Each structure stands twice: as C-alpha cells, then as structure tokens.
C-alpha cells in the first residue's frame, strides 16, 4: 500500500485540487493524506476526491485540516 502526503496548505484556488488530482492520478490506488489550511480548500479537495471515487475522510489538525483519500 502506497501512502502519500500532499501539502497544499496556503495554496490559492484551485491549486489544492490540481496538486491532489495530479498525485491521485499518479498513485491510482493507495492512501493519500492531503493537508489544507482553509475550509474552502478542504471542501474543494473532498468534492474532487469523492467524485473521483476515493473513500474520503478528514480531521482537524493544528495547521488546518488533513483529508485522507483511500482507494
């Protein structure tokens, strides 16, 4: 099982989604943790990962949020 961490904290729209998309397309399956710093980025990333068929959850961290996507 591959596990990747993608740091999208502080990036402007739509870069968190773009980096997530690029990473997940490369991984194809496994577990990815995407770090974001705003609720908007969290929602955008989750909307993308869910639509792309990844099982998604999130938790709050000290610096924002960590979204976990599994497939």
């Amino acid at each position, binding site marked *: 099982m591959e596990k990747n961490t993608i740091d999208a904290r502080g*990036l*402007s729209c*739509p870069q968190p*989604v*773009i980096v997530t*998309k690029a990473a997940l397309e490369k991984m194809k399956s496994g577990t990815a943790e995407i770090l974001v*710093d705003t609720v908007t980025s969290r929602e955008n990333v989750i909307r993308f990962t869910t639509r792309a068929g990844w099982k998604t959850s999130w938790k709050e961290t000290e610096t924002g949020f960590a979204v976990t996507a599994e497939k």
Partner: protein
Amino acid sequence: MDKMFMSKNGPAIAGAIIGVIGALLVKFGNPGNMGFCVACFTRDIAGAFGLHRAAVVQYLRPEIAGFIIGAFISALAFSEFRPRGGSSPMVRFALGFFAMIGALVFLGCPWRAYLRLAGGDFNAVAGIAGLVCGIGGVWFLCGGFSLGAARPTPKAAGFVMPLFAAAILVFLFVKPLFGPEGTGPIFFSEKGPGAAHAPILISLAAGLAVGWLAQRTRFCTIGAVRDLMIVKDAHLFKGILSFIIAALIVNVALGQFKPGFEGQPVAHTMHLWNFLGMLLSGLAFTLAGGCPGRMLIMSGEGDSDAGVFVLGMLIGAAFAHNFTAASSAAGIGPHGAAATIIGLVFCLAVGFAFKNKMA
C-alpha cells in the same frame, strides 16, 4: 439554513438570491445593469477618495464595504476567519491593477458582465467570451503555476480590510469637507453613474447579505468556469446560471430588460475591446485565484493577499481614469488599447515566470 447554503446546491441558491438583489438594486437607483459591479464600484470608491478626478464616477459604494463586512461576520460566526498572507503580494497587487484596467475597458467585472447579459445588453457576449478565454489561463495552473503558499499571519492582520470597509462607511455617512475651497477629501458625483445609487441603507443591507451568502457558498464567477475546465465540476457554474436566470426574470418583470447592442447603459459597442478587456481581466483573476467579488470576500475572511489584490484594483481604477484608459459609452479611452495590451503582456509574463513553482 446554513446547511442549505453549504450543500452542493449552495452556490445555485446563492446565485439566484444575488441575481434577484442585483436586479432590484437597479430598480432602487443603481446605474443600469449595475446592481453589482465590483470593478465599477471600486472605481467609484477610488474617485470618491479623490484618487481620480472623473467627476461622474465618484461615490463610496456601500455594497463593497458590505461584501467585506458581511464576509467578515460570516467567517467569524463559522470559525472560518483564518488570517493568512505572504503569497507574492506585489504580484497580486499588479494582477489586481491590470484586472481593473481590463474591466474598465469592458466596463464591468465578471459579475456585471453576466448582469449586462441578463439586462439584454448583447455587447456583454463578447466580454463573456473574452472572460472564458482569459480563464483559459488555467493552462498555467495545470502546468504548475503558483504564486507561492500563503502562511498564517497574526490574527490582527486579518482585521485591516474589514476596518477599511468600516472606514468607507464612516466617510460615506460623515462626508468630511476640509479640502481646498471646501471640497473633498471625499467627492461625490452630482451627475452620471456615480450619482445613480440605491438608498444607502438598502445598498448596505444588500452588500452585507451578499457578503454573507458568498462567504458561505464560495460563489465565484471565475471558479465557476475554471472548475468546469479543469475537473468538469459544475458546482459553482450552477451558481452563475441561476444568477443570470434570476436577474433576467426580475429584469423582465420590472421592465428593465432591453435587448440590443446600441444605447445600453454604461456600455460601448466595440466588440474587439469588450473581448480583449475581459480577456485581460479573466486571465488576471485566474492567476490570482478568484473573481473580484471572491477577492473581497476572502479579504473579509482575513486573507491579506486578497486584500492586496483589492487595493491593486483600487489603484488600477485610479490609473485607468487618470491615464484615459477607461472606456465610456462612446467607446474605449485614448489609451485603453495600449493599457490592455501592456496588461496582457504583463499577465502572460507572470504566467510563465511562476510556472513550475508548485512545491
């Protein structure tokens, strides 16, 4: 109620409400097809502060202050006030500057482009086509374009733009006059678009409501098209559709729908420059990460970079009029073409210079 706004239909619901309010504000006195125009209103504010002396476009638009304060209150209420900044602020200032140049060549921000269409102004079609092409700047984003990551800032940094918005309102109500010959430093148009406005409290209430709504739903006229292009996500696009349809329905009902090209309010018929003006704006907004309305909202959420972009727009508006680059109903200004081309070259240069900068 917040659940509804945060649902997948949130932007569509918000778009419809904003469209209705936009059309109603014209009924209440705002200039034609200008219920909301972030570019025009910011330009009016620049004029009211005496940063430019185009006497017909000077007014402290309460809608703009309302957007920022409404978003600020909403962000505080929902724990989304997260002050941040430091992502190439100078570049963002310049992008705001040129986004405004393009908008004033077209005569409207993306919000007004759609409102013009909903009012029957078909000149807006060329502008919207330019806007969509400008959003094609996502090519840079997909190629790794980034202005760098913002970082959390001390909380107080996020209060600056809401305070600026509050100051706009204070000056609007106090109207200080201590400049030379008893005029200024605040100027208000006596005729022209700057003199056309809804009653202050209605404008302010509309601005606050839209600021709140747009903060909750992330309503964004650039993101709408951009997300369709890059991830085929129509989430925000539905917001634009319902925005146009709602404004159209209210315009028809109120007799404000006047289809045609000629004689449209605060608009010109030079299609090439309508296209190129919005091309410039669309590209600048795309590189900065959102439409001008969204920038105001994010500045209320504590995003200093968005605030810097807004200030770039304010100064860009002053330069657009002082350098006769802004258009009028007669057509583009004497230096509108040159300013648009300089802006396009600048934005392309930024696009290439910051490509492959994604960590």
